[in-house]
């Protein structure tokens, strides 16, 4: 009988204890909940429209948008990587930049506008292919210049050798003529 009473008491205590702990209110969240993926909170974000101007193209979607994003991404350097485009990088920065490019292209901004936007923000360093202007022209012209200079040097050398060979032959022929004449 005592055992049964004790068991009932224990069960009663548990019955009260479990709901009591279950009814405890959750601690208030310490931070505002982040948005779900793809969700945009109204009014939050950054103003880019006055820097980009009006879209000069048409809004892209589907496969066309995917292609345009891939093209832009291939030209933009990942800021956190060594000589990798944002298309080739899995870094969070590269993902954010691809998402930004997608967003802008889907709003009708052209490929040039989007690339120009990244260049405005990060500087020309963000372009994997530097623009052919100013000091950059050295980079573009140097290979062709070196090939031309090398070709010129080879041509001069060949001409010089041919001339010296001709001079040697002439001297030899003169000597033969002199010896056969006597």
């Amino acid at each position, binding site marked *: 009988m005592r055992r049964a009473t004790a068991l009932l008491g224990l069960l009663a205590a548990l019955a009260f204890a479990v709901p009591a702990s279950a009814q405890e209110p959750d601690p208030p969240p310490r*931070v505002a909940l982040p948005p779900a993926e793809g969700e945009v909170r109204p009014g939050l974000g950054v103003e880019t429209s006055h820097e980009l101007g009006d879209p000069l193209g048409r809004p892209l979607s589907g496969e066309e948008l995917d292609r345009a994003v891939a093209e832009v991404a291939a030209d933009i350097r990942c800021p956190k990587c060594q000589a990798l485009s944002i298309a080739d990088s899995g870094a969070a920065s590269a993902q954010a930049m691809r998402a930004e490019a997608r967003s802008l292209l889907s709003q009708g901004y052209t490929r040039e506008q989007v690339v120009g936007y990244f260049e405005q923000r990060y500087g020309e360093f963000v372009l994997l292919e530097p623009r052919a202007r100013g000091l950059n022209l050295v980079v573009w012209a140097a290979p062709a210049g070196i090939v031309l200079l090398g070709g010129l040097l080879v041509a001069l050398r060949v001409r010089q050798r041919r001339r010296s060979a001709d001079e040697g032959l002439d001297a030899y022929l003169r000597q033969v003529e002199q010896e056969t004449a006597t």
Partner: protein
Amino acid sequence: MNRRVLLVGVGTSLPLLLVLGFAFRHDPQIVESPLVGKPAPNFRLADLDGNVVDLAELRGKPVVINFWATYCVPCLYEHPLFMEGSRRWQGEIQFLGVIFQDDPETIAEFNSDYGSWGPSLVDEGGRVAIAYGVYGPPETFFIDRDGVIVDKAIGLLSPDQLLDVANRMLAQPAAATG
């Protein structure tokens, strides 16, 4: 013959030396921001408690924006500096932290443990970091009373640097604001 060798040697090495000399005039790790001297991109971001901060509403007061994260060691070294700065220039300079690719919960725990020197703003999708051309934390932008970026620091900010730019921004007359 020796003269020719000398001429060829000088002719090939001199341009190379000139290019290298020009290229190494400054630290190649530092990329100058094209945004310095231009209006700061405006943003509206929520802090960890959901309070919205609008940069445009801070016009008239110098602003220091620090992109930071708890995984970034230099950011942790900067923390006491910003704590001191926000205390010293309370009411004069607004300090804002923008979370760079970090978990808001982790930031909240860090702030709870070590204190907070200003609102920690949640940059959803990293769009504000892109608009400011941030390569990686920590990067600090100094915005004057007119909303123009007057300076930018990449990496660990030194006390002298903070003092220098803060004094410059505070020296700008408030009447100049539009």
